[in-house]
């Protein structure tokens, strides 16, 4: 039992491959010529999809033309290229840990700025709370200057303590979970 079916269009695998790859790279799905790199940083930025596809197409063509008839003519060139790629890869890998090294903060470290903001308000807050408490106690007990004097001094001490804790100069004392 034979079928006399002939395809209306040539649909060998290679043609299909060409068609779909063109379709994929030239506009329909990936509409950008140079897509943004989305992946590990070492891969380099902006892989040219059209270049890759051109290479694939030419490789497929070459395979169709002379299928394993000639051994790899440019074997030394290939090995040189492999060696160069390996060196580049090693270079990238050796560079990677130093890039994200936490030991050396950058000069424009945003967390340093945050610490600065934090320290300035800690002292003021301590003094303000001391003054407010002293004022309330003066009003409440009628011991006019003494509550303010004592609590302003205590508040100043608390502010200094806050600053030293925030700066990490002293351990957090009773608040430290590690003790």
């Amino acid at each position, binding site marked *: 039992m034979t079928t006399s079916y002939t395809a209306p269009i040539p649909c060998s695998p290679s043609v299909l491959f060409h068609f779909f790859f063109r379709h994929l790279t030239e506009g329909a799905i990936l509409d950008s010529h140079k897509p943004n790199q989305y992946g590990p940083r070492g891969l380099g930025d902006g892989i040219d999809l059209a270049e890759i596809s051109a290479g694939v197409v030419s490789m497929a063509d070459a395979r169709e033309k002379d299928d394993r008839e000639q051994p790899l003519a440019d074997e030394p060139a290939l090995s040189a290229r492999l060696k160069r790629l390996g060196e580049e890869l090693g270079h990238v890998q050796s560079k990677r840990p130093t890039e994200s090294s936490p030991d050396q903060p950058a000069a424009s470290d945003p967390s340093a700025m945050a610490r600065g903001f934090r320290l300035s308000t800690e002292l003021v807050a301590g003094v303000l*709370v001391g003054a407010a408490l002293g004022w309330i106690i003066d009003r409440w007990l009628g011991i006019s200057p003494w509550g303010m004097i004592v609590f302003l001094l205590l508040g100043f001490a608390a502010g200094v303590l806050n600053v030293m*804790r925030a700066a990490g100069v002293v351990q957090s004392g009773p608040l430290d979970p590690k003790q």
Partner: protein
Amino acid sequence: MDPIHQFEIKNLFPIFRIGGTEIAFTNSALFMLIALALILMLMLGATRSRALVPGRLQAVAEICYEFVADTLRSTAGPEGMKFFPLVFSIFMFILVLNVMGIVPYAFTVTSHIIITVAFALLVFLTVVVYGFWRHGLRFLKLFVPSGIPIYILPLVTAIEVLSFFSRPVSHSVRLFANMLAGHITLKVFGGFVVMLGGFGLLGWLGAALPLALTTVLTALELLVALLQAYVFAILTCIYLSDALHPGH
């Protein structure tokens, strides 16, 4: 021209009255609702697909989650994760409100101290209530350091108590003051541009300087907006860690 004008609260429409006070829907409430809608849209949109390899929106949501979760775990320990909903809500809300405030004509909700005090008191009361509920009177050990001579103990305890009560003050004033000062600075330099621009060609040349400064300051304000949300969140984590482990 008035640099304070941007912080004015306007009543949009009245809701109801309590006693003699009218409770109205203000522009502040409007922008809080917008921020809430933005966060809801981000989170619901990001978690709808639940892909193993995240898309852009999902990656944003995952970065936010990982960031807050890492901060909380590193400061309050693994059991601090029970406060994750609180910290994440506060962080995202303040972040979106701060960043929205940079948009021209937008209202900066976090530049009002009543808002930041409400956030700081929420955290402070959570610490106090949870600390007493979890540890009982042992929570008061927070104020009594060990290994201190008895004659100096009252002084140190008083200082510790004052230090504890100064926390919500510094917590709220920091966010409020940063946002207020930054936005006033922006408005003042923007006003310079307009005033100098009225003096003809020489004025236009002079106006280039404050214009450049305004541009730089806007970038700085964006940094401050992100930074202050982060600082507020990390201090919340530190304070909550005291409620979890009140010493010794």
